[in-house]
């Protein structure tokens, strides 16, 4: 089972929402569309579902061209960021609605609704109406409706974005299990890299209507092909700095330089860009190979047991994300330590140099 996008393009008016995109999604695991708001995640999902028709290009499902097939004939289901349920149906009737449209008989409907409600832990709420449920329960109902009809394709468009932290964590843990045994393709859109990493599966990094990279999530995270993909995969944003290679050394400023890693020693001298993820910059020194970065603290936030320190150094804004509580005052001079072995190097075209 596969969903294949061939040079799919979407242009509305004068705006290109999706640039020619080719992508093959397989059954098994979750396919993640990762990108910021307006990156084109929702448009891409609507194209996959058949809610929108591509301006150019083709969509193939299981070896069949379904580009012109309307959504009703495609057997897809979708879960939205808002909790979409029929307002005056009970939870049971909401979940049963796709089956009733499909014309299944009562006992079968009853059996399947009970089953999926059990899976989503809403069995005790079947007689209630959506307005009597919490946000998390409403979204569980919407998911149950998507799962009940054995779709070939399930699309989830930031389903956890409107939930509060605890409910989000709870559902996020359950999600991979919900889809594990299903014979369908699951596509999940999110703005959060952490969510993508937690689900594993495959990730398509999206930026301004383009899929910049697609592959197993871990691979994309470790080896983003370019700076754009690296940015999409990092939250807080990845630290970027311009460096110059001189002989065997990379130079950030006259007094901050380090030895080029082995694989890169033969690289031509000149301008390069480095990317260091925030959690590889820490107020505590972890090894003698750490690169000290001296700067002025802008803001230091504490989030649970993590510290996020924003600081300016050498004309760049930097972010550090570290475990433990590291109190800093705004305006304070501080030295932070970058784990330079984890640094990503990009060439003049902002493409990753593999070492």
């Amino acid at each position, binding site marked *: 089972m596969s969903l294949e996008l061939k040079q799919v393009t979407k242009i509305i008016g004068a705006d290109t929402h999706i640039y020619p995109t080719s992508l093959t999604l397989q059954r098994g695991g979750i396919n993640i569309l990762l990108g910021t708001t307006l990156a084109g995640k929702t448009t891409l999902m*609507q194209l996959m*579902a058949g*809610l929108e028709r591509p301006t150019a290009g083709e969509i193939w499902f299981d070896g069949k061209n379904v580009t012109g097939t309307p*959504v*009703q004939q495609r057997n*897809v*289901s*979708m879960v*939205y*960021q*808002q909790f*979409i349920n*029929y*307002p*005056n*149906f009970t939870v049971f009737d909401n979940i049963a*609605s*796709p089956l009733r*449209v*499909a014309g299944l008989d009562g006992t079968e409907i009853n059996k399947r609704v009970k089953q999926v409600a059990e899976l989503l832990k809403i069995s005790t709420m079947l007689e209630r*109406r959506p*307005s*009597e449920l919490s946000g998390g329960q409403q979204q569980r109902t919407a998911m149950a409706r998507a799962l009940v009809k054995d779709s070939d394709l399930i699309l989830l468009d930031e389903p956890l974005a409107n939930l509060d932290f605890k409910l989000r964590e709870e559902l996020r843990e359950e999600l991979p299990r919900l889809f594990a045994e299903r014979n369908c393709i699951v596509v999940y859109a999110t703005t959060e890299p952490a969510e993508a990493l937690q689900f594993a599966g495959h990730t398509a990094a999206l930026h301004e209507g383009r899929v910049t990279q697609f592959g197993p999530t871990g691979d994309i995270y470790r080896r983003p092909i370019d700076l754009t993909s690296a940015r999409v995969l990092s939250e807080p944003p990845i630290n970027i700095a311009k460096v110059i290679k001189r002989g065997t050394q990379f130079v950030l400023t006259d007094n901050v330089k380090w030895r080029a890693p082995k694989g890169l020693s033969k690289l031509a001298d000149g301008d390069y860009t480095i990317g260091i993820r925030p959690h590889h910059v820490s107020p505590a020194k972890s090894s003698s190979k750490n690169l000290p970065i001296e700067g002025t603290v802008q803001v230091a936030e504490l989030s649970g047991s993590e510290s996020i320190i924003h600081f300016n150094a050498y004309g760049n804004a930097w972010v550090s994300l570290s475990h433990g509580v590291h109190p800093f005052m705004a305006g304070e001079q501080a030295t932070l330590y970058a784990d330079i072995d984890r640094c990503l190097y990009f060439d003049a075209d902002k493409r990753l140099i593999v070492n």
Partner: protein
Amino acid sequence: MDKTANHKAWFFVLPVLMLVAFNAIIPLMTVVNYSVQETFGDNNFFWAGVLWFEEVLRSERFHASLGRQLFFTFSILAIEVPLGVAIALAMPRKGIWVSVCLVLMAMPLLIPWNVVGAIWNIFALPNIGLLGQMLNGLGIDYNFTRQPGDAWFTLITMDVWHWTSLVVLLAYAGLASIPEAYYQAAKIDGASSWAIFRYIQLPKMKRVLTIAVLLRFMDSFNIYTEPFVLTGGGPGNSTTLLSIDLVKVALGQFDLGPAAAMSLIYFLVILLLSWVFYTLMMRGEEQ
């Protein structure tokens, strides 16, 4: 539920209470005062008890006006609410036509009530009015000043013309607040347009429609100016609605006691029916 006792808070409510007292409670109390007394001019008042209430409630004239009033109100509700919803559904959702439609819809609401009456009076005159001439030209014997049926037809048409827009605007606002995702979800389910209307749009419009029905009910039950200018209650008493009858009793005959009793009964009928409407429409929405 913990409530903190804060007696100072009453001082903040006081100005509003005084305002309400001056413009509602005190006038209402003078009406109550009149309704239980007999007067012979020269400000001589005598206690009459519930005499006027009994008289009004037994009066066939009052029954007839109340009947006409109920007929009028339920007719215009039965036309304006479905028509308003239908027009709101047919209106465009985006583009420049939205503002054009909204302005056109708001027009009748901006016209003063007596002008609406005057416009329709002239418009419908059988010999010189555009509508009257046209209907008679088509061979229909139409004369709203002579035939009660024609008077009712004109009265109801005028109200529909004047007030359907209000329902349209409220229903349109209700429709505009439904996220696009609902329609997409329904489309994915393969729901028909009737199902979308019945199970998404209508429930989502319920609150604004309740307001629309209540407003139209109360306003139409209180209607005075337009029928007064259009038909003056005639021909005969055929379009004498409650408010017109009340004015005849109070100012025409200067029967202050019965008129006051009638006003209070009128007020209680509106209150009761509004409550019934509200309770029926809000059934099943406990929170």
